[in-house]
């Protein structure tokens, strides 16, 4: 396995290098002076302008410039934003990334779980009325024109009913005298979510070896309760208590985008799960499991769904790759100032260093996600585990 990962990493580095060269050339092929937006920046002192030109060789011929860019890139120097001059692309990304990650990891987790759950229930209840209706609904949300749907939801919930805020990720007036940046709150929200998931996962792993099923269930239940109590104490003490009103403001703003994207995103998982599950349910080992006297729920979850998970996880990881490019549209519609908006703005304003940095980030993200898909697939399917070793 290790050898496989190393080999893949090597291939990925080459792919990434080519990607970098081509995108740089492409950006510089945009008509006009490649650094005109730098020149137009009123905040930029003239001597700084000269220095930037020199360091990054912006007045050199294209090939030489590309070469310099690549070298600097691998040294970890991404230049300065033309638009927000003293800021580097890294600083801009660091500010935007948590917002995007927060929104879309929640969307993806929610969408995956609801999709997988609905899919397996649909397959299990094949032929019932509910199955027909939910399948039809899923097909609708799978095929609906997403921007239209998002705007409709904004209109209904934000404008007509007025339940949820329209756009933005916080109420600026509320944050006017906030003692900290929104980034700080975002980061601690992400940390919280990650810690909670890790604890839950650890409880799951730890209880897996227990022979008695009822004890296993009880332990998992207790761990869930413990997490709830723990969360309550966490948000009502110390630093977190101060952040709480702001965190809940952000959470409130997240409801609508999470809901809308989930409704669109769950359907793919649900329909795929349904189809694969129905295939798996025909297998002989499902009959064996029934003959063994295993409960219906356990057959559904441990035998049928477990095998059906394989293609679903793969397709899901491929959709994770689209988190950031998908976020361009979503963030534009919901005025969510994340990576997607940064990407769009930097391209429109020809802020090449920022655009390059964000694109590279997306590229690296995509490559790693693909690797992850392969690795997790081979973990989930023991039949592949052997092959990938060879």
């Amino acid at each position, binding site marked *: 396995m290790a050898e496989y990962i190393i080999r893949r990493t090597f291939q990925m580095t080459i792919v990434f290098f080519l990607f970098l060269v081509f995108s740089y050339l492409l950006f510089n092929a945009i008509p006009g002076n490649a650094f005109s937006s730098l020149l137009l920046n009123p905040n930029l002192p003239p001597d700084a302008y000269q220095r930037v030109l020199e360091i990054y060789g912006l007045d050199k011929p294209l090939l030489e410039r590309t070469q310099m860019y690549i070298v600097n890139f691998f040294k970890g120097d991404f230049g300065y934003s033309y638009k927000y001059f003293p800021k580097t692309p890294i600083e801009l990304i660091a500010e935007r990334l948590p917002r995007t990650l927060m929104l879309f990891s929640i969307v993806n987790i929610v969408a995956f779980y609801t999709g997988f759950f609905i899919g397996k229930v649909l397959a299990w209840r094949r032929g019932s009325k509910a199955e027909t209706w939910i399948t039809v609904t899923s097909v609708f949300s799978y095929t609906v024109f997403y921007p239209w749907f998002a705007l409709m939801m904004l209109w209904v919930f934000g404008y007509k009913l007025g339940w949820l805020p329209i756009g933005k990720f916080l109420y600026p007036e509320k944050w006017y005298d906030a003692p900290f940046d929104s980034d700080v709150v975002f980061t601690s929200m992400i940390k919280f979510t990650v810690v909670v998931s890790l604890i839950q996962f650890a409880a799951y792993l730890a209880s897996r070896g227990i022979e008695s099923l*009822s004890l296993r269930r009880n332990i998992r239940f207790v761990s869930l309760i413990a997490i709830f109590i723990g969360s309550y104490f966490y948000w009502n003490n110390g630093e977190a208590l101060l952040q709480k009103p702001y965190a809940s403001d952000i959470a409130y703003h997240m409801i609508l985008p999470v809901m809308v994207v989930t409704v669109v995103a769950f359907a793919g998982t649900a329909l795929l799960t349904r189809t694969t599950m129905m295939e798996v349910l025909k297998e*002989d*080992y499902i*009959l*064996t499991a029934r*003959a*063994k*006297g295993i409960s219906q729920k356990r057959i559904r979850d441990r035998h049928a769904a*477990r095998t059906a998970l394989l293609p679903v996880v793969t397709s899901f990881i491929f959709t994770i790759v689209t988190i950031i490019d998908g976020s361009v549209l979503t963030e534009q519609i919901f005025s969510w100032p994340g990576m997607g908006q940064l990407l769009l703005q930097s391209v429109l304003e020809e802020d090449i260093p920022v655009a390059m940095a964000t694109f590279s980030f997306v590229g690296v993200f995509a490559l790693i996600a693909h690797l992850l898909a392969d690795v997790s697939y081979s973990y989930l399917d*023991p039949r592949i585990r052997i092959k990938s070793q060879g």
Partner: protein
Amino acid sequence: MSKDVLVVKDLNMHYETLSGDVSAVKNVSFTVKEGESFGLVGESGCGKTSVAMSLLQLQADNAKISSGSIKLDGIEMVGMSESELRKVRWDGISIVFQGAMNAWNPVVKVGEQIREAIREHYPNNTKIQNTEKIESLFKMVGLDSTIMDRFPHELSGGMKQRAVIALALSCDPKVVIADEPTTALDVVIQDQILKEIKKVQELLGLSLIYISHDIAVIAEMTDKMAVMYAGSIVEKGPTSEIFANPQHSYTKSLLASTPSVVGDKVKLNSLEGEPPSLIDQIEGCSFAPRCPNRNTTCHPELDMELVEVGPDHFVDICSASRN
């Protein structure tokens, strides 16, 4: 006299299909005693698997048991609720499925799949107890205990099949059904597996229902047997008695088409024609269209009934032939 473990009486089961009801099991009755090996033989499609599935009530969704009774240790199983059935399955009756090669979930370790069954029926066992149980089962069927941590695709066909037998024995069932357990295996392995089943059956004093289309195997494996044709039992009795003194024309044809049993290489008298469609109602003798003895001694148009012709030996004959 050992007691009756499984008593099946007048069992009727049909599949509902678009072109009509397929009567796969018609008025089937038989009894399996403790420690006895019972054989069910018949051509492909005669309803053997349907009988097996009805015993566990694991029939396909379109199958209905319309009447009859299945008593395990005196307890009626027809009409049991799903949760009652779950308790009986594997603990009361376990099965080695036809084509058991695909009986293993490919993504779960073999040991874990056996453990799962034991856990279901003996929830208070400790992990070590279960491991020891599986080790002893593996030993009995001639498998190494390290197989426990293997995935199904890492085992050969024969090993998988041995493991399936271990799985079937894992909850000490009262009755084990073996539905053509050797179909997908090559001849040498088939023989080994048969010996293994025979050995285990005698060792544990199991009540075994052995299903096969090969009457030679039935001769080797069973004490009592029943011959099925088109959903009905046409002859049943002690295996030795039926081989020595077959009464029904279909049984005779089956025996005649199996050279290894007859001994000398007699001319293979293979049956011509197809069994009747199970959708149509059959009046009188269902074997009549293919029967070599037709119209010489019998009245195939009359109602047929199982009649005792020797000690515990029953044959399906028409009302006119009864004396």
